């Protein structure tokens, strides 16, 4: 029996954000915007969903008089990502075999 894929991560933009955050200590909103190629509105909505699920933490601060949003993956987010990758492996292995 296959493990269920986390519906929160099984979407293009949210998975991109989590995959970016898994490899870094923290990333700015602009960095995520550039790397994903998403629109500001869309990425804001998806970040909010990930934050509400406890997968990421968002910090808003001022830097050089400009507002700066910084995102960081939480331990819960890391765990969810690892589970997602495990479940994905199962699907891919079964389709290869």
């Amino acid at each position, binding site marked *: 029996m296959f493990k269920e894929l986390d519906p929160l991560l*099984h*979407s*293009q*933009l*949210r*998975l*991109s954000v989590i*995959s*970016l955050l*898994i*490899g*870094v*200590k*923290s*990333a*700015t909103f*602009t*960095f995520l915007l*550039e*790397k*994903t*190629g*998403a629109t500001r509105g*869309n990425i804001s909505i*998806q970040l909010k969903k990930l934050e509400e699920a406890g997968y990421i933490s968002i910090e808003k601060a001022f*830097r*050089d008089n400009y507002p700066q949003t910084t995102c960081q993956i939480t331990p819960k987010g890391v765990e969810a990502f690892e589970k997602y*990758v495990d479940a*994905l492996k199962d*699907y*891919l292995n079964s*389709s290869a075999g």
Partner: protein
Amino acid sequence: MENNVLKHEASLKIIYDMIESAKSRIGRNYFYYLFWGYLVAFTCIAEFLLIKVVQYPQHYLVWPILMTLGTLVTLWFYLRQKRAEGARTFIGTAMAYLWLGWMISLGILIFFANMRQAYGVILPTAMAMYGLAIFVSGGLVNYKPLIWGALLAWISGIIAFLVPYPVQLLIFTGAVALSYIVPGHLLKIKSKTM
């Protein structure tokens, strides 16, 4: 990027592409290697000439002057780079702590060696410490020229303990050229092909 539901292969590709694009690229940091490599090599040669040719008694002053200047330039460059990058990587943070720790250790060494007038141990110990720092740096980013450079720095450190101070300066110049300037140029080439 749309927020579509994904096929499994596409999920895997996204994960791979995003992790790759967020990785810290050592090639971007060639400035530090070239800047410090040339600065230290220049300082060593300048002090050697001040001792042997000019015979200036306060020859050691080149170190505090040029190293303070180097630290200020590095700090300015680091802050500018940090502002522009948008993401803080674990490797970047580890590197920053490693080199900051290295500078603090060097400060302790210089202070107490001067206090006890043990000037001859400063350069060999600094070389050994420098070997440790580039060994860890090379290991963190899996860059072999730095690991070989570390080996060379340690050997140079051992030799430097056995020779007089002006010769130590020449050994340090050679060690820095081979273990910092050469990898720096290789990184510069690498960064342009990435």
